[in-house]
């Protein structure tokens, strides 16, 4: 018998006597009268929760993204920035050295100051930004190695909770859920920001 056959035979034997009773899950765990995507309440909640977990939130008009991004980079003293190939051209910061990712090696990415990406979905209730490696977000490595991540989110991408987010996402793309900057609770269970991921997360939340 192969390992596969042994394990499956064991499990079938284990269930043969009395299979587990499956309790009714009860009413669907979610009917909170939540707002539709992009509702102003959701945007406020997202901004509040992000701030709560030490991300910095910048709320701007749709036309003000480039200026906000440039301002964040300048304030952080970032001089080298990587962007995914599909990032809208008008968001690209002008005053710094911009590298468009074409498969840059990790060692190169690790020496860059910042990354600018879009997002796929954001979850208001948990303060979570979700990247799905789309053309305006890029490979997972580019939003991991630079120490500053600037992420642009549009209102229609903001959903109320986790189930709504999953319904919009597809499993055939690698997903990265980000809730604030890298952190640890491993020292006396106190949350400390800044371990291996980007130590600073700035979210530019537009109004349309």
């Amino acid at each position, binding site marked *: *018998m192969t*390992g596969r*056959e*042994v*394990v*499956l*035979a*064991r*499990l079938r*034997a*284990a*269930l043969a*006597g009395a299979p*587990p009773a499956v*309790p*009714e*899950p*009860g009413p*669907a*765990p*979610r*009917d*909170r009268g939540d707002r539709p995507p992009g509702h102003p309440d959701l945007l406020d909640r997202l901004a509040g*929760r992000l701030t709560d*977990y030490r991300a910095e939130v910048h709320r701007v008009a749709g036309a003000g993204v480039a200026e906000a991004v440039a301002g964040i980079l300048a304030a952080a003293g970032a001089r080298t920035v990587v962007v995914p190939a599909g990032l809208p051209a008008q968001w690209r910061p002008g005053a710094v050295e911009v590298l468009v990712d074409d498969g840059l090696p990790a*060692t190169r990415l690790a020496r860059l100051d910042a990354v600018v990406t879009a997002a796929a979905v954001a979850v208001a209730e*948990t*303060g979570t930004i979700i990247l799905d*490696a789309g053309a305006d977000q890029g*490979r*997972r*490595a580019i939003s*991991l190695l630079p120490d500053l991540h600037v992420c642009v989110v549009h209102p229609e991408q903001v959903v109320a*909770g*986790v189930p709504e987010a*999953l319904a919009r996402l597809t*499993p*055939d793309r*690698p*997903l*990265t*859920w*980000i*809730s604030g900057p*890298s952190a*640890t*609770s*491993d*020292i*006396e*269970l*106190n*949350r*400390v*920001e*800044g*371990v*291996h*991921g*980007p130590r600073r997360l700035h979210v530019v939340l537009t109004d349309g």
Partner: protein
Amino acid sequence: MSGRGGAGRTTFLGMPATAPPGVGNLRGTEPFPAAARRALGDAQLRRNLRHATGTIRAKSAAVIDEVPDWPQLRAAGRAIKADTMARLPELLEQLEAAVTAAGGTVHWATDAVEANRIVTELVQATGADRVMKVKSMATQEIGLNEALEAAGIEPVETDLAELIVQLGDDRPSHILVPAIHRNRAEIREIFLRAMPGVDPALTDEPAVLAAAARRHLRETFLATRVAVSGANFAVAETGTLAVVESEGNGRMCLTLPETLITVMGIEKVIPRWADLGVFLQLLPRASTGERMNPYTSLWTGVTPGDGPQQVHLVLLDNGRSAVLADEVGRQALHCIRCSACLNVCPVYERTGGHAYGSVYPGPIGAVLSPQLTGVADNASLPYASSLCGACYDACPVMIDIPSILVHLRAQAPHPRTEAAAMAAAAYTMDHPALYAAAQRAAGLGRLAGRALPPPLNGWTASRDMPAAPPQTFRQWWAEHRSGS
């Protein structure tokens, strides 16, 4: 339960089997009471634990309070897990097909020996002599690090707490925070002693210690070609694996290497993509007391041009089939390793995790370890509880740990222990007021949940009351302290 003993191995190859002895970390070197006694004598350990578990309990209660449908979410979590166990063989086959279709390779390991062999051979095939690891209970359970080292491969733990344990030549004592028994001053000492190139001016500020770990591991992340991970969830319908983490070491290990090997207990599978919506709400709030942990990574096989191009999944039995065969005990397989039951347990808070011997400490360890190994090999663990019920109330998937403990006590021969060890430990156990309260409550039919602070008390309202235990922890202790 069958499957124990050499003579039966061939005959019962396809029958549920416990985890083999002599490999991995499911069995302690001494019974719980003896180990507990030593731990109870360590005042610093108790202070560290009390501080840490108190912090996490308060954080968790606050964020659970924000979720109006928390009871329904727990019920949904329990129902999904029960459904999973009822269909486990089919779901694993479905998972295998989906992972394979997405470019991954699936391996099946009957036990720790097989799993270690599979992983070692996969690493050897890459030619690498070093792997980086993101915290995984399954690989600790099977003793993978020891197996890799024996094959000349260096495993590097990248989780901060695991790193503290590894550098300190120590053992993990908590599911979520393996170095929970260490405070900041002790961690500083360990780093100064064992971290190459560390700044001698290192302070014990948590942020400074975290920054030291960042510098220490950066080169490892960039240069290591193989990573080994665990998985919190695996979606049968899509083949998607999930790792829930905080620091970003998980993202590094899942993104940067050429080869990724994930070792996962077979009970981690869940049926549907949408089921993630239940567990990704339950786990962070119950575990770290956050609305959401900083990073969650989901991947499905291989993505061309993004992340590891060689992706393996090792499905591990190692005693789980034996647990599944036990109609009462099988709920222990529902565990999502949040560690909430440890954080509320009065026994854990006093003894710490090492006393349990196994990598699975606390209330879940007291029911899982004896079932994985066979009760005879962990006979004192079902008694490592006051049956106060706090674990059941805290568990985000409503595992009725007290009922399983009672069930296992009926199977456990009362272990023989030294009278002196018992007497000393029992004296300490006798003093904390919480014990007395919990034991009184247990005698009253386990109404202890009512005595818990909000919001824990609300959860007790609808739970089933198990039959009164045949013998309480204290009665058992009292009997054995006299050496009978």
